[in-house]
């Protein structure tokens, strides 16, 4: 049995719903409320399980009917930079993880510089200068606006104390 993208997504959704349903049914009921705290989640999870099961079924039927894709079809797909997306997620995750350690001011300058580098490496001195200016400038402006004007206490780094 072949499964496509929808089938896999449906299976994941179905598994999550079935895993959580017993928990919803097991929630304690209170005498003052006619329906317990598990009633509504159980309703939502049942709905999710049914729709996910239908999606799996729909995908199985579609996969049976669909002819095997021609190999050249792959070359017709537009080029997608998934590596860049993965790298972007890593950079953003690292920024968020490091914020409480190195603080907003240092962390944001580094993040803005590294993220720009990852997305598009500067090719001229002017572009390098623009990269640095944007990194420092954006950090400075957001710091002034949020901390000085909007009274938001931005994260201080436990490592840097700044």
């Amino acid at each position, binding site marked *: 049995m072949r499964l496509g*993208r*929808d089938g*896999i*997504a*449906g299976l994941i*959704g179905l598994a999550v719903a079935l895993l*959580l349903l017993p*928990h*919803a049914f097991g*929630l*304690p009921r*209170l005498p*003052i*409320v*006619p*329906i317990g*705290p598990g009633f*509504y*989640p159980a309703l*939502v*999870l049942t*709905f*999710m399980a049914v*729709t*996910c099961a*239908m*999606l799996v079924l*729909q995908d199985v039927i579609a996969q049976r009917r669909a002819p095997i894709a021609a190999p050249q079809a792959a070359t017709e797909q*537009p*080029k*997608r*930079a*998934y590596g*860049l*997306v993965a790298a*972007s*997620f890593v950079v*953003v*995750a690292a*920024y*968020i993880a490091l*914020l*409480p350690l190195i603080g907003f001011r240092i962390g*944001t300058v580094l*993040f803005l510089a590294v993220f*720009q580098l990852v*997305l*598009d490496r500067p090719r001229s001195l002017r572009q390098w200068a*623009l990269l640095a200016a*944007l990194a420092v400038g*954006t*950090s400075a402006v*957001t710091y002034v606006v*949020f901390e000085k*004007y*909007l009274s*938001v*206490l*931005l*994260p201080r780094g436990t490592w840097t104390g700044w």
Partner: protein
Amino acid sequence: MLELLGAGILTVLQWKYMVPLLIGTFAGVIGGSLPGFTITLTVIVILPFTYGLDPLAGLAAMTGVYVGGSTGGLITACLIGIPGTPSAIATTFDGFPMARNGEPGRAIWLGVWASVWGGLLGALFLVFLTGPLAAIALEFGPWEYFSLFVLAMAMVAGLAESSLLKGLISTAIGLLITVIGTDPIASVPRFTFGSAFIGGGFPFLPVLIGIFAFAQIMTDIEKMGDRGGNTSGPLRATFERFSHLKINWEIFRQPFLLLWSTIVGLIIGILPAIGGSASSVMAYDQAKKFSKTPEKFGKGHPEGIIASEASNNANVSGSLMTIMAFGIPGDAVTAVMLGAMTIHGIQSGPLFVSQNPGLAYGIYGAYILAHPLMLVICWAAMPLMLRLTSVRLAVLAPVVMVLCVMGAYALNNTMQSVYVLLIFGVFGYGLVKMGFPLAPLILGLILGDQIEINLIRAIMTDDNPWLFLTRPISGGLLAAALLSVVLAVWQHLRHQKRVAEEDTDF
């Protein structure tokens, strides 16, 4: 009412409100003119700056973004044939050919002026119809509210482009996110598994920002493989000589076109989460059907631009009407506005206008004043806007990401919201890659708590579940929800049949 409106406009004319409105409108025009940036992303970027402001100042800024963004999309639509926002899609059909025929100035300014007049006509409906709509909503009991929310979700799921099933699953995911944490009646923890991190549930705005902003930015980054990092090519347009008077005459010599496009936009705006793109395409289609010269459409016909732009700006007033009368967001932008209202402790819904007249009429005032402001911005800052549309994604994405992080962090000055942002950012991108629409999820996320509360209230008042069907309004709303799902299935089957017939043609 007119007195209150006058007071609302005078209030917003104060610097305290005028500056945020001006900045918001400017940001909206710029954000709207950047292809792939969207109005929702612009309002998310503006959001953290509004936390520390007076509620009306914050909402005025967001209203400005909404109005400015709805117009900004037409700039690239006319000049390079790529709509800056989905709501300018139908403007491309005639705006781009007109610009290519040597009249880029006429194309853009026809759109700008049509936006202004469509938006201001929409304001009339907004001011005079929100109250009566809220009065109808006041007659609603928990049964009717429950059914209304179910109808809203059924409509949004049914409109999902990929498939109805995926739209419904997306809705269920949104609802499921809202049940994590303590239950609203007895505070029993649900699906927290002893974790303090999710003990209080997921805060709405970081989830929304994470899902929407990450999905948008990462999808744009993905496309860098195709076009190397530019949001669009650099725009250089030399405008021909044209007269603003003549352009306005072109609009007003067809009052029916302007009025009908406005009404189409307004109605689509009132319906939950359908959005400006549908209204602009529908108004364009209607304009073509009613036109004496339908053969000219698609070749630079002014009627096409007028219909599309008047309708997408009137759509904004419809969305604002829904949020103020029913507490249901008309689209993702009003969802963010709803979140901002919650932060300020303001409850939207049928009592909103009567309990907060100053704020409500202030929003009307901001909406009305945003139009002349947008006109001035477009007139004064067109060369700057043309330059900004060529900003590289490599520059734009990191700045937007920092502002998203700030938007989550500044909510309660803790890193927890930022972690939620990241988790749901990854999750939202994954959903998009799996082909799930995000609009139903967002609506489920916003309405989840209210659906549960109204369901429990209804059952606590009377445990007869048939009341949901036998009370006329509630039953009617549920029937409409069912009809909406049946229609979506029918449309899907018809589409499949047509595709199968086209396949067998050769």
